[in-house]
């Protein structure tokens, strides 16, 4: 690149040693977030990273920006407070599947509903890493873990479905080891004004190794995932020979060239469509019936909480005679003792 770059990814690294287990997917996410910030030329002093509690939430300490490592599940509320109080800041919220969707589920859905301008990076390893291996709200039904020795008897949340159910405006999915995709998606999340939820399929080598392997492994990834790009047809497969079509109200995987199916018959991704029906279908596709959707699935402009707060204050202030505390206190039902 020819233009002068003020910051490189190194400028976003703190002096602390990164203490995640070797081979943990978190390392790659950290590096790609730093790379994305450098490519976006964010100023470290204007970035605030707010995290909850979990292995993933240690992230904050490894950044050279402002950072607040908070309490379990409440990070999105604290991040909302930061952003609403200081809309000039870039606020990133780092969270885990337990942090965001179990203890913090209430704050997560309400943050998404309000569409506060935050980048929420949700590390989904389908396990509680920090507490050493209990099942999480995203663990598959029947999942055997330390706290479910006979398999779970509960159904998992699908973060994309939950985000859209909470009227989310931005949802993207990526995989820890897909470095370029991570950088692209993080940049898109930052550029989007509103709550951007990015689900990162993250591998916990210690307590849930290979949980995403069926779709993330180099060997099958191209056949088992689909990268969605706005305005482009939904094609996937190692040989770019498969695609998605709509049959009635359901999605269907088709083979290009078979039964006369051509590229022009395939669905074209529209991430900006206000109606979330298609986004929901795409976000909930699961292997083996479907390829798992990656990339920006939904990115729809809407009213942004923090922006509207500022606008309302401005409007009221323009029309109000009350400019100071004394103005307020000496108005209305008052009398004077002389």
């Amino acid at each position, binding site marked *: 690149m020819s233009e002068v770059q003020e910051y490189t990814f190194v400028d976003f690294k703190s002096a602390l040693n990164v203490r995640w287990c070797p081979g943990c997917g978190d390392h790659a996410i950290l590096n790609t977030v730093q790379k994305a910030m450098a490519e976006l030329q964010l100023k470290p002093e204007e970035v605030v990273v707010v995290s909850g509690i979990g292995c993933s939430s240690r992230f904050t300490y490894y950044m050279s920006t402002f950072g607040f490592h908070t309490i379990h599940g409440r990070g999105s509320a604290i991040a909302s407070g930061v952003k609403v109080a200081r809309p000039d800041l870039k606020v990133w919220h780092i969270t885990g599947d337990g942090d965001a969707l179990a203890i913090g589920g209430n704050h997560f859905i309400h943050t998404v509903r309000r569409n506060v301008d935050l980048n929420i990076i949700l590390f989904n390893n389908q396990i509680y890493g920090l507490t050493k291996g209990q099942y999480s709200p995203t663990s598959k039904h029947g999942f055997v873990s330390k706290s479910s020795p006979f398999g779970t008897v509960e159904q998992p949340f699908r973060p994309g479905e939950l985000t859209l159910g909470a009227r989310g405006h931005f949802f993207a999915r990526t995989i820890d080891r897909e470095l370029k995709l991570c950088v692209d998606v993080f940049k898109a999340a930052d550029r989007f004004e509103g709550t951007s939820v990015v689900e990162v399929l993250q591998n916990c080598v210690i307590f849930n190794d290979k949980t995403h392997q069926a779709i993330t492994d180099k060997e099958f990834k191209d056949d088992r995932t689909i990268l969605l790009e706005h305005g482009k047809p939904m094609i996937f497969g190692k040989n770019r020979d498969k695609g998605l079509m709509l049959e009635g109200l359901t999605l269907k995987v088709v083979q290009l060239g078979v039964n006369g199916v051509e590229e022009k018959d395939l669905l074209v991704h529209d991430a900006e469509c206000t109606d979330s029906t298609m986004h929901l279908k795409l976000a909930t596709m699961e292997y083996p019936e479907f390829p798992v959707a990656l990339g920006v699935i939904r990115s729809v402009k809407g009213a942004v909480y923090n922006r509207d707060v500022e606008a309302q204050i401005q409007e009221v202030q323009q029309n109000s005679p009350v*400019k100071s505390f004394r103005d307020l206190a000496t108005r209305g039902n008052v009398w004077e003792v002389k």
Partner: protein
Amino acid sequence: MKDQNVMGKSSKVIEVDKIAVRFSGDSGDGMQLTGTLFSQTSAVYGNDISTFPDFPADIRAPQGTIGGVSGFQVHFGQGVSTPGDLTDVLVAMNPAALKANVRFMKPGGTIILDVDSFDTKGLEKAGYKTDDPIAEDQLDGYNLIKAPITTLTKESVKELDLDNKSVLRSKNMFALGLVYWLFNRPIAHTQAYIKTKFGKNPAIMQANLLVLQAGFDYGNNIQAMTPSYHVSPSENRKGIYRNLNGNIAAAWGLLLASEKSGLPLFLGSYPITPATEILQELAARKDLGVKVFQAEDEIAGVCTAIGASYSGALGVTSTSGPGLALKTEAIGLAVMAELPLVVVNVQRGGPSTGLPTKTEQSDLLQALFGRNGESPVVVMAASTPVNCFDYAFYAAKIALEHMIPVILLTDGFLANGTQQWRVPDEGDFPAIEVPRTRQKPGEFQPYLRNEDKLNRDWVVPGMKGYEHRIGGLEKDAVSGNISHDGPNHHLMVSLRQQKLERVAHFVPALEVVGDASADLLVVGWGGTFGHLFAAVEALNKEGRKVALAHFNYINPLPLNTAELLGRYKKIVVCELNMGQFAGFLRMKHPQFSYEQFNKVEGQPFTVQELKEQFVKLMEA
């Protein structure tokens, strides 16, 4: 009793220095408004006032039943410090109101009844067994004004083309007019109110004005039978005055703190009785740039406030007991991160949902100790409705200057009670100076402490060269990095406690009111001040040697606490709980012995019961 010329007519007038009136009726009868208007007129006239609304817990209890009775007591005159134990005048708009409130009557007082509502059905609903409530409740010794309020209300607006419902809605103005007559009060202030309030609806405005006048005239016409009262104004300091309740006062104290510190005010809150009004008042203060975040729950309420505080605002959360319980963990985070935070807790009857609309002081130990770990926070308490303003201001000042969470305790009694309040002058409150850093960029150490307060510097995002990470994990006392070292943890726990204790050097010394050589020291804290003060004052007048030490600063206690307690032979700690402050004093100053007087009936103390108790203790 002396004769005096009132409004051109001769009548009997009783001179008194203070008097209490209780307006009561069905919750739809507008008694809260009636009481508020009356107290405003009294305050404008120059009386001290203290008010106490007594609402039913159910929003819509069946009409005409005891459960649906809504009351509003106004105490006014000179040197008023409580809403009054008992009332001199009772307005009862229906039989249920009479039945529910006779127990608050002073013997021989005046009762104004709407006789129209005392029909068989009304009496039955109120639970009267006979059709003679006067005999049944033994009210013969009282001065009864049996006014046909409903009939006369209808009569006075018959020229207007109004539906029956709107007519009946203005009944309260008749009662108000009548009470104005009884107290020689001009109706002009209320007339002005009606004109602005109903300006858009001329028929309703007209009706209210006519009915108000009709009530006043009715009093004038029946004066031969009834004495009226003269209550002189107090000598008040020059200035602009208004009436304020404890919740609005607390909200406004925070507004002044925001102005004095130059920091924007951010409130994160979730509605809960009796604290909701703080949220509502501040939500209306966009004109002063306040940001209010109505959160999904109390946890998010405090968390957004912490986020705002982290990023440089005055972060505040408001709640009541059950909500404070939910905020516990997050307050601990603010303790650990050493961030300023103000938590206003308006106490109500507990535990659990308890008595949501009633007052109590039972969150003291929760405020002091209700967190995991060694987690000291400043705890302070307002003691009158209007000094909720002062203590909210000082809570913010301490939080911001000492970088520490402060829990301000008020209660349902203070929150809903009103008093007249003098708008402070510019110099009445000090500046607030937050600890901005003098460290150099690139070398910033977030947990380096300042010598005087042991606080850390407040650096907010956006300051280049000061980027740093903080959080709930223990940190190294020097570098601020995460530390799991045992001795370092011990040091940090001690430092946070010492930082709290330093606050005592910045708060006023405890003062004693009443007899300096008293045999009995009454100790109280928070919202019981008015009643304790009135009881001690009355006993002093009777020549009894009793004094009062009332605490507004609880953690840390004022520096002179032990010295002061040590001067008295006998100490009694009075609280609306089972002895929480007494227990705290025993823990902090075990060298003294403490008697207790406790009550948890959802109601304030009465001056009478306090006096009896104190006399008993002095004679024991």
